[in-house]
């Protein structure tokens, strides 16, 4: 599945033992993916490889994080891996939706790659439909977290100190039987599947998600990446952290082209 780039330093470039794997779930508003774009762009991460998979819709373009003419000509595809060894961080970016019926095989292959590359833990950035919140969730922070039991042992206390809110479980048959609670992440794509599989496989995984709706999701991406930063401290958090994340050049023209002058 994982194909290393030759440039990525050979075997050193693809040695992720003990690293934190940061990845998005393709979810409502694409917030996880936008947040990952901010991380890769701000930290100037190097591409070390890609996933050769038949589970995602194919796409290709030139370098989305280009800053100048010289680095704008590198091809970029739908699932690529970037790394920053100084922070023991490896990031997977997913740029297209799943092909029908292929999301399960993708999750299986991804989690076995996580195990075989000996990543210490996985952090999934995701989102959930804001309109599905209950009355209590409408108040307070729209950000939530989840930890698998193995990661709970390691960092559960830190979440308490940060005053983070755990994602609430909902009744499986609301109105009929309120005692049986299940995890429900509407609009979260593969988030729930990845989380439940990681729980059963003993993988240390955290899910960070934001309640949001489709629209201009750039502010949601900033909120999610700042939330992540409270924990992982990827950049120095000062008063106005939003201005410290670098927007990639590919975010231009998200809402269409310029207008024809003849319109006026």
């Amino acid at each position, binding site marked *: 599945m994982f194909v290393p780039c030759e440039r990525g330093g050979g075997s050193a470039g693809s040695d992720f033992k003990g690293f934190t794997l940061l990845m998005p779930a393709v979810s409502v508003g694409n917030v996880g993916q936008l947040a990952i774009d901010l991380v890769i762009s701000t930290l100037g991460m190097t591409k070390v490889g890609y996933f050769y998979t*038949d589970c995602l*819709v*194919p796409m290709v*373009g030139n370098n989305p994080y280009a800053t100048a003419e010289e680095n704008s000509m590198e091809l970029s595809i739908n699932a690529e891996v970037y790394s920053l060894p100084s922070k023991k961080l490896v990031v997977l970016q997913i740029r297209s939706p799943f092909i*029908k019926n292929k999301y399960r095989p993708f999750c299986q292959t991804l989690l076995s790659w996580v195990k075989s590359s000996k990543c210490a833990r996985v952090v999934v950035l995701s989102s959930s439909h804001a*309109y599905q919140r209950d009355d209590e969730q409408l108040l307070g922070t729209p950000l939530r977290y989840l930890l698998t039991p193995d990661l709970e042992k390691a960092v559960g206390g830190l979440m308490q100190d940060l005053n983070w809110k755990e994602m609430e479980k909902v009744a499986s048959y609301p109105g009929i039987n309120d005692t049986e609670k299940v995890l429900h992440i509407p609009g*979260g794509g*593969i988030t729930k599947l990845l989380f439940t599989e990681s729980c059963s496989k003993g993988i240390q995984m955290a899910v960070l998600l934001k309640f949001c709706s489709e629209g201009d999701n750039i502010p949601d991406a900033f909120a999610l990446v700042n939330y992540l930063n409270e924990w992982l401290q990827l950049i120095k958090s000062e008063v106005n952290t939003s201005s410290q994340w670098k927007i990639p050049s*590919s975010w231009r023209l998200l809402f*269409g082209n310029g207008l024809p002058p003849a319109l006026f």
Partner: protein
Amino acid sequence: MATFFGEVVVAPSRAGVDDEEEAREETPEDREIRRELEKKREIDILWTLKSGATTESCADEPFVCSKFIVAIGRNAAAFLSSFILDSVCWEVVGVVKLWNEWCRTSSTTNVLPTDSFCLFYRLISDPTVLLCQCSCYVAEDQQFQWLEKVFGCMRKEGLQVTILSTCPVADYKTQESTLTLPSPFLKALKTKEFKEQVCCPLLEQPNIVRDLPAA
């Protein structure tokens, strides 16, 4: 989600994930239906050997290929028909048989320009030059299979691949409006291994390429 008229609709999400899909457990009947559908959507490539006989697999001997030109879509296929292909210099060596909701191709090599087809041609004077005209739509779940089956038959050392395709100008993202843009225009994407001169400017972000050309 409630709309202005008060009716409740399920908003389509850019994320493209169908929640219902994950909740439903697959029954044995569902599995059988899915398997039958998958079989129906399988791609078959029929190659014509030197002897004139058609064969489905080229597993014994992948053929040597120095240049592979692929034209995807009706416009690109028509370009090849008008300017490159002729019955004197090129011979048909393969055909792809596939079915999806948008089109069906057959195993005949005698096609009309208005048909949906996917044919492979070889330059008679240099049999390592291959050409593919693909005017049919290859669905997303078939693109990977197409790729593996076609490229699986050729030796990849020293291979140069050129992909010709078209996109609507309206899809092009640019600072000015596309109405004033002189069209048609050419843009290119190339791998870093491609060292030759490209005849047109490179495709700038945030523009991307999808479907079979991307695959």
